[in-house]
């Protein structure tokens, strides 16, 4: 169960090997989390993570899935509920893609959208149904500031996150009164493997800082969490720039 301070005891992580997900789990097990279900594509990576958590006395289950196959993502959700309630589910998988390739390759763009949007939405409805039946739970999904306004430089990734963001905002409203809450997290530029070698955007942050914002946001039942918080105002300004000006912003 989630306690009065919003701390979950049982957690499912889809995309568990992502650096933000790992930072979230590390913080949750410092709190009340004692059962963690880790799901990811990389079996070896999962094993290593599980080992580390078990040494802290956490009950860990692992399951593999491939988000380019939404059915396998839903299967991972089903697995997690087989051995008990899930208090919090974190949807942390995603791919950045390669804008310059993707915008000329229908197969590549299909993959980005399938992973970032279709599989996440399929997992979202599966989680919503399971959690509605158990009468409680929190779904936390990693969106991105890139979804706030599509940019010339990354509109493939950005549009997939925009779709995901809109889907989960709507899912949240559909779950009012069910005991299930949805929190959409919009991190800015995070220093991770995914962004390695890229030029940091303003207000860049780290996986651990995002994790702290994720946990605090979910605990207070926030519908949207910006990480870092001031991004909300920065992006609000960007959103209202005239198109001609916005298009000319480098990067």
């Amino acid at each position, binding site marked *: 169960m989630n*306690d*009065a301070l919003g701390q979950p005891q049982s957690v499912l992580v889809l995309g568990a090997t992502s650096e933000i997900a790992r930072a979230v789990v590390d913080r949750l097990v410092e709190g009340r989390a004692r059962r963690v279900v880790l799901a990811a594509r990389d079996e070896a990576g999962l094993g290593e993570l599980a080992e580390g958590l078990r040494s802290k006395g956490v009950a860990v289950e692992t399951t593999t899935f491939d988000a380019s196959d939404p059915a396998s993502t839903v299967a991972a959700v089903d697995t997690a509920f087989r051995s008990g309630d899930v208090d919090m589910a974190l949807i942390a998988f995603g791919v950045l893609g390669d804008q310059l390739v993707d915008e000329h390759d229908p197969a590549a763009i299909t993959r980005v959208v399938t992973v970032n949007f279709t599989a996440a939405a399929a997992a979202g409805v599966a989680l919503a149904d399971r959690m509605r039946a158990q009468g409680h739970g929190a779904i936390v999904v990693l969106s991105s500031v890139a979804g706030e306004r599509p940019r010339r430089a990354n509109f493939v990734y950005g549009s997939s996150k925009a779709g995901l963001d809109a889907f989960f905002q709507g899912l949240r409203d559909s779950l009012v009164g*069910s*005991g299930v809450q949805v929190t959409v997290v919009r991190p800015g530029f995070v220093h991770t493997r995914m962004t390695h070698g890229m030029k940091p955007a303003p207000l860049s942050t780290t996986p651990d800082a995002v994790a702290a914002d994720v946990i605090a946001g979910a605990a207070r039942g926030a519908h949207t969490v910006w990480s870092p918080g001031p991004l909300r105002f920065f992006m609000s300004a960007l959103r209202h720039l005239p198109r001609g000006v916005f298009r000319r912003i480098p990067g």
Partner: protein
Amino acid sequence: MSTELLTGWGRTAPSAAHVATVRCPADVAAALSAADGRGLLPRGLGRAYGDAAQNAGGAVLDMTGLTTPFELDTSSGLLRAAAGISLDTIMRHAVPTGWFVPVTPGTRQVTVGGAIAADIHGKNHHADGSFARHVRSMVLATPSGVVTTTPGEALFDATTGGMGLTGVVLEATIALMPVPSAFMMVDTERTADLDETLAAMTEGDTRYRYSVAWIDCLTPGRHLGRSVLTRGDHAGAEQLAGRRKTVDPFRFTPATRLSAPPWAPPGLLNRTTIRAFNEAWYRRAPKREVGAVHTISSFFHPLDGVRDWNRLYGRRGFLQYQMVVPFGAEETLRRAVTTLSSRRCPSFLGVLKAFGEASGGHLSFPVPGWTLALDMPVGDDTTGAVLDELDDMVAEAGGRVYLAKDSRLRPGLVPLMYPRLGEWREIRDSVDPGRVLRSDLARRLDLLEDK
């Protein structure tokens, strides 16, 4: 049956359940046999602060519709009351005939079933014990049938303080207490610090039936633990003579005068406003006052005058932390108060009281010692860590926290705080082998089995 989002009085950690209203014992039997894997739980007036009366995804029986029987024998003071009858109803009927509930908590808005499930206590615990001591028998609907249980039986002890997890109380026979009037004679004094408070209570409590201290846990330094001590007893007719001439000595007409607004800004009650309130509360109390006449409601239930006061804590709600440490562990109590004050944990006026003998309930909270209860808003960063520290101190000293108020304890500490948990589980399982009775509290704290 309808799906409803339920919380405790603290309005934290909501969960949805299928709520069914109970009108007669047959409704309970039907619900017990229809329950699925998410189980079933009775709920009264929802005054438990945390998740004790919630059952996520399962069935919750609204017991407030079960109001018969309700029979008071005014010669013996024996009351036969259905589980859904509130202490408020009992007092409104019984006080004008010269009888009073043997135990009342800080609110009249609790049901007989809830009073048994939490084995509630009041300001007279040092003299009269908890609610269970005054229950002569009760009728309990369990998944294996309806049984009548009486003091001394294992099932009786498992049910008093059993948090509704041994079955659904249908009715109870309770011995009321004769009172000479509907008024209280109250002595008030202010103490300068924790030592003075403890000394005053140790020395003087035996002279009073009711005793409680409002303790300030925010003011640091040499006034740490300063308190307003109020103690009293029911006023005799001769004591009222000449002071309340025109009023019927048994008049009992409590009224709700105020209602909290439906919405309060988050953070209205914060470290600064709470400290200011604590200061004002201490200052407005008389330094020493003897023999003041109070009404029952102003002495026992001041907050019942404000409807929905729990909303003042805003959207995130609040929690109440109540612990007890045995006599002799005063050092632990002092460390707890010092920790709260030095970490500047925003806590409203605490309640400090000396408990007397325990009832036989396996999971009943009160044991001889000092109990401290504090209200705290949710949302302050320090609260969780400070309370975890307090839990460790309390467990180490052989104390415990009150399950009816808990909303955040670590499950691993429960067997230490409640050493008879294993015994309770065996008795519980014997009447509910299919684990039909379940609650969010039980899930969170592994009450039914170790995880």
